[in-house]
């Protein structure tokens, strides 16, 4: 049943994308068809874009494993959208640029900077897209048990085919509808869980959250290990193993698994008895409920520097949101800067309850599904919770609604990202038209799918973290300085983009290939925003101040961004057409 729900969302996406334009048959409907979209509907579309696999699947996973420190991710995003409202949305809409490279070129008269900005857009979007594909792989596997690569390839190809066939011609409508699926996908299970929690205290032990106990299995459970994984088993336990453990093949046999580090082979099933302490991935700390619930506690996150880590993810996420190309482009659909800001107000109003509900899945997931701590499938926490708490039709129904939401989340965001990437490649680097856009869509999809197959072992939000770090340290400074500081010069912007973007990308790749894995070097490279964001801003300002080659026609450009449309001298103001009925 859940896979039918996913299919339904996909089908609806395809249909709406192709046929979902405003339609009118008589001239009297022309007026309606050519009227701009209400800010609320635009906000639905922005939310459809913003609510991705990262928040739907990634954040609950982070909270489940690492604890409350991870709430900073959500706080960062919320602040990011608020800052976007204050500083970016209206001026960039008034300026009229659709893509970030267009803005940079237009603001600085720097055609040479356009490909550099386009490259940053591509890199930041790429990491973000990998996370969506990872989410697709995880969700499809959890629903129908196919290998991880099936979901990645299927969703990647589907999105690319849809885009190259012109299937996102009315993207505002498609993403608006997807938003409702995403929101329901969180709201419905949230309501169900809340009702169970309030009415049936036995369904799960809510006191298990903040105790000095380690996570344990409440009932006997058979856990599937999809990929080879190294776990720490806390206590020697009598289990049933069907598969490979520490190089020995067991054939559904009862075995005493010893405490310590064990390597479990891909495809193994292990049945753990009720009450057994849950094993956990060897690379993360085993936390008691109390430790888990304590912010800035003695944890290994951020290489053992949780304060640095918290500041870093907060900065990366708040500044990253301001610079994420697929989000910024969505404001173009608003007719004026004022409307763009009103849209963003709606976005905040819709995102806030969503972000407030999402952590619950991590919290409850830790109690009802501690197996996720040890089988490397943390990113499916959101999907699993309903299944564990309910049975029969109720379970199927809730899981279907969640699955539909997850599918809408990664489909809409993957489409938006691929549009941003393909647009940057065809429009800003190749400076070409629609055929090249199609080529760019397929190229972007091919590269992303290939890489998506390799990132199974990375948490969704690790990938998102890199993407936001890169956006925060390169695109965000370009936008903020470009909009608010007249002194930015071509050389300053280039230096900021190259140094900020280069440093954060290098840091991401260094961590991706596991060059360092502990201590300060790890903290500084895995979450680089603390130093790369100020570095980029300082470089941009410093180089611009020393640069004698200032941008000309600056007053006009600043006025274009900051003077509201209705105050512009060339504007005719609102048109009033009076029609009075004679003789009535």
């Amino acid at each position, binding site marked *: 049943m859940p896979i039918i729900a996913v299919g339904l969302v996909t089908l609806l996406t395809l249909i709406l994308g192709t046929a979902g*334009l405003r339609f*009118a048959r008589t001239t009297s409907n*022309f007026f309606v068809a050519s009227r701009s979209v209400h800010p609320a509907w635009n906000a639905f579309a922005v939310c459809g874009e913003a609510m991705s696999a990262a928040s739907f699947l990634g954040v609950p996973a982070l909270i489940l494993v690492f604890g409350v420190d991870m709430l900073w991710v959500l706080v960062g995003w919320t602040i990011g959208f608020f800052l976007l409202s204050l500083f970016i949305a209206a001026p960039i809409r008034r300026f009229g640029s659709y893509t970030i490279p*267009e803005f940079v070129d237009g603001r600085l008269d720097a055609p040479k900077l356009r490909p550099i900005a386009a490259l940053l857009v591509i890199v930041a979007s790429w990491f973000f897209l990998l996370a969506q594909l990872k989410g697709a792989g995880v969700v499809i596997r959890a629903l129908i048990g196919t290998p991880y690569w099936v979901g990645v390839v299927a969703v990647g190809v589907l999105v690319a085919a849809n885009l190259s066939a012109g299937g996102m011609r009315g993207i505002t409508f498609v993403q608006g509808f997807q938003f409702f699926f995403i929101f329901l996908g969180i709201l419905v299970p949230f309501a169900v869980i809340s009702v169970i929690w309030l009415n049936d205290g036995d369904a799960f032990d809510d006191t298990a959250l903040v105790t000095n106990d380690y996570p344990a299995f409440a009932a006997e459970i058979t856990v599937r290990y999809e990929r080879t994984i190294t776990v720490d088993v806390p206590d020697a336990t009598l289990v049933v193993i069907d598969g490979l453990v520490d190089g020995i093949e067991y054939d559904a046999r009862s075995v005493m698994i010893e405490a310590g580090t064990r390597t479990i082979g891909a495809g193994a099933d292990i049945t753990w008895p009720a009450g057994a302490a849950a094993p956990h991935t060897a690379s993360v700390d085993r936390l008691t409920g109390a430790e888990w619930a304590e912010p800035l506690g003695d944890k290994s996150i951020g290489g053992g520097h949780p304060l640095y880590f918290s500041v870093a993810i907060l900065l990366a996420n708040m500044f990253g949101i301001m610079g994420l190309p697929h989000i910024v482009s969505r404001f*173009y659909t608003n007719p004026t800067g004022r409307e763009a800001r009103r849209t963003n107000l709606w976005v905040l109003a819709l995102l806030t309850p969503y972000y407030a509900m999402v952590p619950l899945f991590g919290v409850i997931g830790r109690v009802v599904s501690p197996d996720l701590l040890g089988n490397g499938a943390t990113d499916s926490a959101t999907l699993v919770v309903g299944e564990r708490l309910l049975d029969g039709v109720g379970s199927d129904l809730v899981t279907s609604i969640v699955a539909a939401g997850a599918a809408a989340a990664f489909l809409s965001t993957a489409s938006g990202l691929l549009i941003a990437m393909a*647009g940057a490649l065809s429009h*800003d680097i190749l400076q070409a038209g629609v055929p090249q856009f199609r080529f760019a869509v397929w190229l972007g999809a091919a590269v992303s799918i290939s890489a998506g197959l390799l990132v199974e072992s990375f948490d969704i939000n690790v990938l998102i973290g890199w993407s936001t770090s890169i956006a925060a340290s390169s695109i965000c400074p370009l936008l903020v300085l470009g909009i608010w500081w007249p002194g930015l010069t071509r050389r300053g912007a280039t230096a900021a983009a190259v140094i900020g973007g280069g440093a954060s990308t290098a840091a991401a790749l260094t961590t991706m290939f596991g060059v360092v894995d502990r201590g300060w070097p790890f903290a500084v490279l895995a979450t680089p925003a603390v130093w790369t964001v100020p570095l980029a801003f300082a470089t941009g300002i410093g180089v611009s101040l020393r640069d004698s080659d200032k941008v000309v026609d600056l007053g006009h450009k600043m006025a274009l961004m900051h003077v509201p449309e209705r105050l512009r001298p060339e504007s005719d103001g609102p048109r009033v*057409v009076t029609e009075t009925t004679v003789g009535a």
Partner: protein
Amino acid sequence: MIRRRSANHRSGGLQLLATVNELSASLRRGFDAESATRIADITRQLLDVRLVAITDDAELIGQSGESSRWKHVVETHARAVLERRRFDKPTLFQLTLDGEQVEVAVAALTSDDIPIGTIHVVPTVGSPLQLNELQDLAALVSSQLQLAELEQSRAYAAEAELRALRAQISPHFLHNSLTAIAGLVISDPVRARSLIAKFSEFLRASFKTQTDLTTVSEELRLVETYLELEQVRFGDRFEVALNIAPETLSVKLPFLSVQPIVENAIRHGLEARPGPGKLRIAAVDAGPEISIEVEDDGVGIDADALEEALRGTGTTSHVGILAVDTRLRSTFGPEYGLTILTGHNAGTKMVIRLPKFVHH
């Protein structure tokens, strides 16, 4: 000028070429303080002299080299040269500069034999002044100035041509609308009144200046008004379908870009067709671009007439289409023209591509 170069410059013929090139480039921007200072710098380097000053027809506007308090002297010399109208060779003056007796040569800069400025050169101590070189250089600068002026007038000409192609409402349409409204004045005065209001709103759009851009949304309203007026005459002879992606609504385009295409579809496609026809207008989002498509299932356009219209040679009635094509290209660049797909009795589809962002 190249014949007698001083020793330290003899090596780089290429460098010299580059310098002359730079001189041309800075002059192309026009004759102002910035380019004058640049010319002075280059002249001092080329002629290997101590001081160079450039004036326009009255004042010192650029200089190069260590100097003080000679603005007044320069301007006096300039006036003398310009008043005496001695432009064929440099005039020599003696003056005391920083307590030192020096010689200064002044050559006139002209454009079309009209004096527009002077160039003043004080040689380095001990090296004689090369008057021929100075005159050659003045001639080079003059010819570059003339080129710049030519470029300017070419831009004016282009603008004038564009103005001639300005958005126009076709006289056919004016006549037809007024006749249609006249027919309604007695039978349906309410509708007639509303149509006159729409008609005047439509006319208002044609008063906009050429450089003004409108939005797709506004242009569609104009098309709506137009169609309403046309339907008075046509009644149910054609059916309209509209497909608009909201992302396209705020995209900017020149006034009256879509309406002439719609008019063309009605006048040359649907009007000539026996029986009722269909008109489809779509605005589609394509990432950084959009496209607007106008499609009819009428009789199609004769390929030869169309080619003539697009080349601008024929006196055909498709001239409105030509104007749209030209205005789109001149606004957004050569790649953003009008695409026409048509065949005999196979209908016509016209597509406009528009970028979402226009560099200001």
